[in-house]
């Protein structure tokens, strides 16, 4: 990654001339400003996942090097990058491919001395730390392919298979990822013969798995060796994902905040900001939107009440880039006219944002068809009684994951494999949706089973 500090010169977006039927994940006006392809990065922390993402995207991660820290694991989350190719035919591959930060102008000069070519923007990708637990859970519940491809990292200075590698492959299978690129990292630390030998081990290891036949690239993220090869493969091997741009837009909120200076006058107050990933459709500045379930409050008689929020989009952004309209891909920030105090401290996390009147229903109580695991996961010994999953009973307090929402619930009644659950926070969802159930065991939330929503009850109007 090279740093282009120059003020970005991005293509202007114009809602007046926008025709969503003509948009696709390669539309120049879109990829000039936002990512349209999601790539999961899978691998053990110490194997250099964040270094690779940094080498490609230029997004700096925080370093935690010592035990004197609560989180040793580096959590990157999301990072976007633009991938370019030099338009000079003479410019040799793979060096003619290059990646820059998301805010880079669309046709920087080729950096090869004496080339004189212009770089041409081909892709705008979003790297997602994977299997991020949320991504994994969402995929398991919805079956939807959140990721379009994956980079699987293997440390070149260790023998293959490494602990966890088979787990990673299993995760890739679950996420139904067909497009995988294996990166043999830290190649600078080993002799060529050793790298060759490991290459053979990897080939053998992936035989018969979903990763069979995928490209294996030796790289050094530290020395930035072969990063251009990764870029070339991303362009050539990862197919353009099919996307639904024409349905009513829907976004899952994963962040919400209030960016105002305390004490701002009403007329200078900025509305609340919601951030998340768009599942389908296109969000545009000026759109009237609804957020469900909305504001939760307590009435004088002690009963809880939820009121959906109605508002308008006033700004959109992807990383640092301002947008006029946003499509699925990466994480999108949505500036609204919502009372900012309602957005403080992630209060809207797990809620759904979309067109007015087009969102699923809001349920306060669910009837679910559930199936419980016999014993807790990861426990091999059959005899161990403590690890048996107890049946559900009335009044149990559980954690329930529905789509990307989690909330607490109380079991109201159970009959065979049906249960009624009173939710702590209402959920915007629909019948047939899958849920995960967890219970407190040894003071941890442990998965005890899955379920499917049979029907839901809404709040009385």
């Amino acid at each position, binding site marked *: 990654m090279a740093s282009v500090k120059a003020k970005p010169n991005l293509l202007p977006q114009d809602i007046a001339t926008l025709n969503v039927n003509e948009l696709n994940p390669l539309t120049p006006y879109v990829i000039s400003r936002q990512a349209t392809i999601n790539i999961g990065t899978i691998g053990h922390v*110490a194997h250099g996942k964040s270094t690779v993402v940094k080498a490609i995207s230029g*997004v700096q991660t925080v370093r935690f*090097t*010592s*035990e*004197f820290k*609560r989180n*040793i694991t580096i959590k990157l*989350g*999301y990072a*976007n990058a633009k991938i370019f190719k030099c338009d000079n035919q003479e410019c040799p591959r793979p060096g003619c491919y290059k990646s820059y930060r998301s805010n880079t102008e669309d046709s920087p000069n080729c950096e090869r001395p004496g080339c004189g070519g212009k770089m041409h923007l081909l892709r705008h990708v979003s790297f997602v730390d994977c*299997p991020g637990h949320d991504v994994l*859970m969402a995929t398991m519940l919805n079956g939807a392919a959140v990721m379009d491809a994956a980079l699987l990292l293997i440390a070149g200075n260790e023998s293959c298979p490494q602990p966890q590698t088979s787990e990673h492959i299993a*995760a890739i299978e679950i996420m139904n990822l067909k497009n995988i690129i294996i990166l043999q990292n830290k190649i600078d630390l080993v002799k060529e013969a050793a790298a060759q030998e490991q290459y053979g081990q990897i080939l053998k290891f992936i035989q018969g798995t979903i990763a069979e036949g995928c490209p294996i690239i030796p790289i050094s993220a530290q020395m930035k060796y072969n990063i251009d090869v990764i870029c070339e493969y991303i362009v050539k091997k990862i197919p353009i994902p099919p996307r639904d741009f024409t349905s009513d837009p829907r976004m899952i909120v*994963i*962040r919400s905040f*209030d960016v105002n*200076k*305390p*004490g701002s006058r009403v007329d200078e107050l900025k509305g609340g900001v919601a*951030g998340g990933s768009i599942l389908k459709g296109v969000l545009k500045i000026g759109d009237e939107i609804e957020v469900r379930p909305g504001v*939760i409050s*307590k009435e004088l008689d002690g*009963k*809880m*009440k939820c009121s959906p929020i109605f508002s308008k989009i006033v700004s959109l952004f992807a*990383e640092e880039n301002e947008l006029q309209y946003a499509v699925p891909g990466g994480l*999108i920030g949505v500036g609204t006219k919502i009372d900012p105090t309602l957005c403080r*401290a*992630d*209060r809207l*996390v797990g809620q759904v944002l979309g067109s007015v009147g087009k969102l699923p229903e809001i349920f306060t109580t669910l009837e679910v*068809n559930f199936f*419980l695991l*016999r014993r807790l996961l*990861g426990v091999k010994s059959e005899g161990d*009684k403590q690890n048996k999953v107890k049946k559900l009973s009335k*009044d149990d*307090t559980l954690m329930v*994951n529905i789509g990307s929402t*989690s*909330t607490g619930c*109380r079991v109201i*009644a159970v009959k065979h*494999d*049906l249960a009624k659950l*009173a939710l*702590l926070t209402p959920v915007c969802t629909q019948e047939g949706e*899958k849920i995960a159930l967890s219970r*407190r065991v*040894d*003071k*941890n939330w442990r998965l005890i089973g899955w379920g*499917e929503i*049979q029907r839901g*009850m*809404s*709040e*009385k*109007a």
Partner: protein
Amino acid sequence: MNKTDKYFENKRKCMFQEWYPTFKQVTFSSTIIPLPKIFIDYLNSDHFVSNEQEFPQYRNDDPEFLDDESWSTPRRSTIVDSKYYQSYGSDSDSDSDDSDDSNDDDKKKNSRIIKESEFQHLLDEIKSIITKYGGYVLPKLNWSAPKDATFMNAFCTLKCSTPTDVFLLLKSSDFINHDLAQFETNEQDDDLTITPYVLVLRKWQNLTESMEFRCFVKDKKLLGISQRDTSTYYSFLKDKKESIQESIESFFNQNIKDKFSQDSYTFDAYVTKENKVWLIDFNPIHPSTDSLLFDWEEFFPELIVDDEESTPISEQDKLKLIQDLEFRLIENREGIRPNLAMESRLPMDLKDSSQSSAINDLLEKFKDKLQ
């Protein structure tokens, strides 16, 4: 807390009940309730039930829905592998012998069943404190608030209006677990014995996260100030940086420096729009305190122990020791970042850092389920 912990004294002095009496005037109104052993056992127990009257309720549009008798016919779109999943068919299931569980589990520490009515006195006390503070409070124990458990709160915050709201948060939080692991309670003690633990109820304030700052003090010298919500860029902070720093410095000199019992520690400050500073909390110099935009190494290089997991750092990468006050903010908009604290909203089984191969197991079973 194990006494060999080298940071023990520092940590103990940061307990709420240790500092609150001295700093009452400069922090939010709070009430400290010493906790009896029965309540600690209740928090430690896996038994987690809520009764209908206490659990938050919404107005129903269909009373029949809640009926024990009215059930729909399951769609059964999902096929279940009986090797992994319990079955409920008419044929008796040899493995679903729940009946004898209770006897077996009695010996297990976490399984004691304690009803809330067994500590009625405490319940009443919490209720009256909530009323005293105008209806809403924020709960915490000696050190920690259950910030990781906001999904177990109807408002998705730490705002509680009933004792049940408080218990739901406390029983769901790993941060609270962390506090509960600091002192051994004696199994032999009777239920009413007062433990070293306290429940703190603080009057609910409508705070703006952007105005919370963590301040680092070494040898009575204020060396660092960091934005506390490090996941968000607040553009207005740049312009206010100087005035915020001045306010915090003078607050520190007047109200903290010579009054706190320790020489090195961190404290959290809230700055109002009039630049008045409030104290939120003290935190020890300890790995469990988040150093936010600083690295502990920049203040206390002597405490850093390199372990095998970490990548060795070269001399040139070593961080510079901070000797004069530095104020760090998130300086540019980087777009939306996920809030990492949200990880606690998912079952532990999905965390790949765990020793067990739970993820693998999960994936295997899930795959089977699909087939």
